[in-house]
């Protein structure tokens, strides 16, 4: 079973700190959502896992082995990014051949099937592919790699909504046929949140939250009602968002048990809304906390 362990991992590019003391353990064959604002450190983490460079300090291991400069480990890791995945002078068929040789569990039949699904011309050079078709090629490699750790970092730039939906179908299909750890990083949270079994949110180079998708849904609560009643019930609680209009106040609580909500209306937010509440800048300026 796949286990990723990061302990106090720090990654610094010259003066810029991309990851700052990140500690997280990911394990099991799961589809995991990796979320964070731009610059939160998601891509850095994924590239560390794929051995693109080494961390500045701390320990990062995949199944107890460091991925950096470790060929046997990296053959089990497939990272697909939004760009720069392939040499631009290579043809689609060359890229598929190289991938077939690199990944020990590569499924050639499936790759060919996917080429048809996305209507790719295998003789075309990578640099002449449209953005959408370039993304499709990355998706094909990621899905057909069957790598024990398959990572997609915003893999669908330029892909239309219909092909994106096809990608989600395929992701579930490959996950069910070849259970493995799949990490998906995306800004289109509403589209994919239902695919996640687990979610990790990075914020400013640190881990903000890591929990099952189920718990994210369970642990938050939106209360709406008269300002007085809402304030009375929620003062001193862990409020991650609040707003008022026409004497009515809405408050989003996280990790709080409210057994009796009285006359207040109780509702739920989507993962995307929760993500925004947790990471949006203004929340900090208002003096309310986003530290859970």
């Amino acid at each position, binding site marked *: 079973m796949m286990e990723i362990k990061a302990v106090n991992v720090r990654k610094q590019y010259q003066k810029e700190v991309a990851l700052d003391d990140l500690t997280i353990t990911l394990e099991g064959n799961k589809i995991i959502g990796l979320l964070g604002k731009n610059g939160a450190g998601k891509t850095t983490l994924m590239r560390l896992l794929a051995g693109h460079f080494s961390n500045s300090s701390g320990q990062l291991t995949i199944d107890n082995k460091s991925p950096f400069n470790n060929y046997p480990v990296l053959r089990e890791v497939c990272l697909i990014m939004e760009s720069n995945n392939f040499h631009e002078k290579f043809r689609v068929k060359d890229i598929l051949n190289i991938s077939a040789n690199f990944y020990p569990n590569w499924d050639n039949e499936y790759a060919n099937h996917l080429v048809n699904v996305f209507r790719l011309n295998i003789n075309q050079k990578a640099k002449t592919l449209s953005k959408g078709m370039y993304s499709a090629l990355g998706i094909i490699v990621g899905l057909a790699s069957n790598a024990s750790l398959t990572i997609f970092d915003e893999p669908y730039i330029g892909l239309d909504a219909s092909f994106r939906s096809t990608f*989600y179908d395929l992701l*579930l299909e490959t996950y*069910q046929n070849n259970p493995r750890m799949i990490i998906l990083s995306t800004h289109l949270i509403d589209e994919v949140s239902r695919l996640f*079994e687990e979610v990790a949110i990075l914020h400013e180079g640190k881990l903000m939250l890591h929990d099952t*998708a*189920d718990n994210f849904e369970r642990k938050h609560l939106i209360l709406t009602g008269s300002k007085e009643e809402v304030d009375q019930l929620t003062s001193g609680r862990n409020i991650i968002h609040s707003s008022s209009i026409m004497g009515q106040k809405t408050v989003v609580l996280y990790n709080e048990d409210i057994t009796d909500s009285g006359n207040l209306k109780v509702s739920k937010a989507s993962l995307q809304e929760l993500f925004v509440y947790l990471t949006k800048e203004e929340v900090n300026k208002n003096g309310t906390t986003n530290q859970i």
Partner: protein
Amino acid sequence: MSERLNEDQPIFQQIAELIETNIAEGEMKANDKIPSTNEFAKHYQINPATAAKGINLLVDQEIIYKKRGVGMFVTENAKNIILKKRKSHFFDQYVKPMLKEAERIGINKDQLISWIGENK
């Protein structure tokens, strides 16, 4: 089973309710095979673990039973269990909100009763 999922309730609960509604309406009968976890995952584009959680909710309530290696089936007593449960929730779920809205906008009980009578 093609109703759309929404954000108001956890997905696993909605999966459980969809199956219940099918059984309550007689669409699926005792000992009928229900779709697999993977079929639910594919149809609704959800994580298979979520679908499994919804189904397990029904297994716990003896609405669904599992046959190892064969699949999952509707129990003999499923429809009764569902109807009993839904009847017990009916007042809170449907009547209470209706009375509240009626009070809010000033519709009296006689009017409500006459509407219900007409519709019968």
